[in-house]
């Protein structure tokens, strides 16, 4: 306690004198042994390179709980709680006014990063955060089963549907009564918004709301995509998929009871675990296109380093951000935490690629990743997302059709938007 006050006084005095001084920064640190190892590495570098001090704060692991906590911290304009923290991909619009503008200090870093991820962190032309690591939807498949039935990995949803049905029929005839062709996240929650965005964007049906904030969801391609997804339920996907989140769908796939699975990169390492029944049989491909004229679209996820607007040490915080996001740190981050780097140059690193050849497969997925319209819809994004996943859920559970759902969704989004997104 005493040491702390002393440090604070020194910091204040030093701040007043505005000379070379030592600030104490508070950074969020993941609450695990691997997280601790990464944080200690950052601390050592930061303290050596800048003569400042670094302390860690631990926060709850679940994204929505964390958001609630940050909002309380920001509501109190608390400058002592945390200076540098990680923000979820879809928080940028919601937290915009509480984030420090980094534009002039980090502009030079832009070419080093995946463009889609970087652009997602630009709000109203200002850079508000820097990608820490990436997440994007990917399609997992069973290599052995595709071989067994003489099929190639599917390029389009139509192919996937056909192959999944064929494998399901064959496996069930062979006595696996509970075998399914395809599992995904169909519960009404944020994950369903991610899945629905992939279906609709892959059919060139847009991203619900375009870059200018215009509501674009009411189009025949979007309706077609939702109808296609509804046709899977009870044919190649279990009815229970309407209650699945990531882990429930992984349970089915990893038990060897599904041919295809849509999930995030985290599932790869787990599916290849020595104890996994499908170890060595798992392949990854980009999320399929919607028909021959469609495109590969994976929903962008991941976390970004951001600085609280209420920090008392903006310069030190930016120094820390620059350290956090350089190639060396990202390599270390990958080694300790196993999350996918957001910098392009790390994917050229021979050491990284040797330890994780599957990253090469994900790189193409990240390059085409589509962000959810969180920046455009600003603080209304949670409402937008909720409207989207409820609409998708209604189509998949047979309580609405694709055409009706996108029309209803359009009017709902218009009501949420009012005159302008705010």
């Amino acid at each position: 306690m005493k040491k702390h006050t002393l440090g604070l006084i020194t910091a204040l005095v030093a701040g007043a004198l505005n000379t070379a001084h030592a600030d104490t920064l508070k950074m969020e640190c993941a609450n695990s042994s691997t997280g601790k190892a990464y944080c200690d590495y950052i601390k050592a570098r930061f303290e050596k390179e800048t003569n400042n001090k670094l302390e860690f704060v631990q926060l709850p692991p679940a994204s929505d709980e964390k958001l609630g906590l940050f909002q309380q911290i920001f509501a109190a304009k608390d400058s002592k709680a945390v200076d540098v923290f990680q923000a979820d991909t879809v928080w940028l619009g919601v937290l915009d006014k509480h984030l420090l503008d980094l534009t002039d200090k980090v502009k030079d870093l832009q070419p080093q990063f995946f463009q889609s991820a970087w652009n997602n962190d630009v709000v109203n032309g200002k850079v508000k955060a820097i990608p820490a690591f990436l997440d994007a939807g990917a399609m997992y498949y069973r290599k052995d089963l595709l071989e067994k039935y003489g099929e190639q990995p599917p390029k389009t949803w139509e192919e996937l549907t056909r192959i999944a049905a064929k494998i399901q029929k064959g496996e069930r005839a062979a006595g696996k009564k509970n075998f399914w062709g395809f599992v995904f996240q169909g519960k009404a929650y944020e994950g369903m918004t991610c899945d629905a965005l992939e279906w609709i964007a892959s059919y060139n049906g847009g991203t619900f709301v375009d870059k200018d904030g215009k509501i674009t969801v009411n189009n025949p391609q979007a309706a077609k995509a939702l109808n296609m997804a509804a046709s899977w339920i009870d044919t190649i996907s279990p009815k229970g998929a309407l209650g699945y989140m990531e882990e429930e769908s992984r349970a089915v796939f990893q038990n060897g009871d599904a041919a295809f699975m849509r999930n995030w990169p985290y599932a790869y390492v787990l599916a290849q675990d020595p104890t996994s029944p499908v170890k060595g049989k798992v392949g990854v491909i980009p999320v399929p296109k919607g028909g021959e004229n469609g495109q590969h679209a994976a929903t962008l996820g991941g976390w970004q380093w951001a600085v609280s607007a209420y920090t008392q040490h903006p310069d030190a915080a930016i120094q820390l951000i620059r350290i956090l996001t350089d190639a060396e740190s990202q390599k270390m981050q990958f080694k300790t935490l196993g999350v996918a780097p957001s910098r392009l140059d790390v994917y050229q690193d021979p050491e990284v690629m040797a330890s994780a050849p599957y990253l090469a497969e994900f790189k193409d997925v990240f390059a085409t990743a589509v962000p959810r319209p969180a920046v455009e819809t600003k603080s209304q994004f949670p409402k937008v997302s909720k409207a989207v996943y409820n609409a998708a859920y209604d189509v998949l559970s047979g309580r609405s059709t694709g055409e009706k759902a996108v029309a209803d969704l359009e009017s709902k989004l218009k009501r949420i938007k009012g005159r302008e997104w705010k």
Partner: protein
Amino acid sequence: MNHHSESLPSKETASKANQQSEALPQKKKCSLQQRRSRAAWILVAPALVLLASVAGWPLLRTLFYSFTDAALDTPDLYNMVGFDNYLAWADGESIGVLADPLWWKAVLNTLWFTGVSVSFELFFGMLLALLMNQKFRGQGVVRAAILVPWAIPTIVTAKMWGWMFHDQYGVINDLLTRMGVIHSPLAWIAEPNLSMWAVVIADVWKTVPFMALMLLAALQMIPSDLYEAARVDGATAWQRFTRITIPLIMPAMIVALIFRVMDALRVFDLIYVLTSNSEATISISGYAREQLVSYQQMGSGSAASVLVFMMVAGIAACFLYLGRYNDEGKENK
């Protein structure tokens, strides 16, 4: 917890006496009755202060915020907006919580859930209580064992039942298929209609023990000679149950029902974890949380919370009135 103070007839007189005695100090000697009631007030004062600070203050703040347009992350920036969060007309459209069809859907869901689950709990709780009231060996073990579901935190219960209801690997579908009740596995937690029943089943499993113990305590208070006398008079078992048991355990039953109904009206975690989370199964607490936490709208979130509070308080008041009516009925006989 209110019913104690409600049923104290001396409450008003006591406070009047209190005021009088403060207004007229030492003029005439306080009666013993007055002194005793003053001592009683002094003794409960700490509890009252505590309640006012941990329950009263947040409630008042919630009420205050329900008339503002504050956001969760900027609670100090607000405008007073009157009843806009509850019900108002703007641009020819009605706005506010009460104009939101989703709110009414949530009210219906919650009332359905409360009615169905509390009825089942009363029925099974009564059966269990009557069973445990019989003398048999291992009574103590049964009573302890029966408490296990009640001791498990709701969130754990929800996750546990979630896996039991799992469409592919759940034990429930497995059992039903083996018994030949169903041919293909049911998606218990994915389909809105089924998932409400899944929530009811989990809730009944968890809270029947509570009901059973409350009723058992009441059953044990009934003197056995009443039953013997009834037997001598030739009353059947059914008559003994309806004429002796039910009237005598009624007060305890009312209290247990109040507890359960109030709990059920506030249901949140079970539905949040166990169902598809779609608008088809949202409860009023879920609605309030969504407004407040997901949408950052402190105003409408507070308004919804106030409405939840009013609903729960209103229904509790009805029960208390019923209970009192029962007591008076007995006194008049």
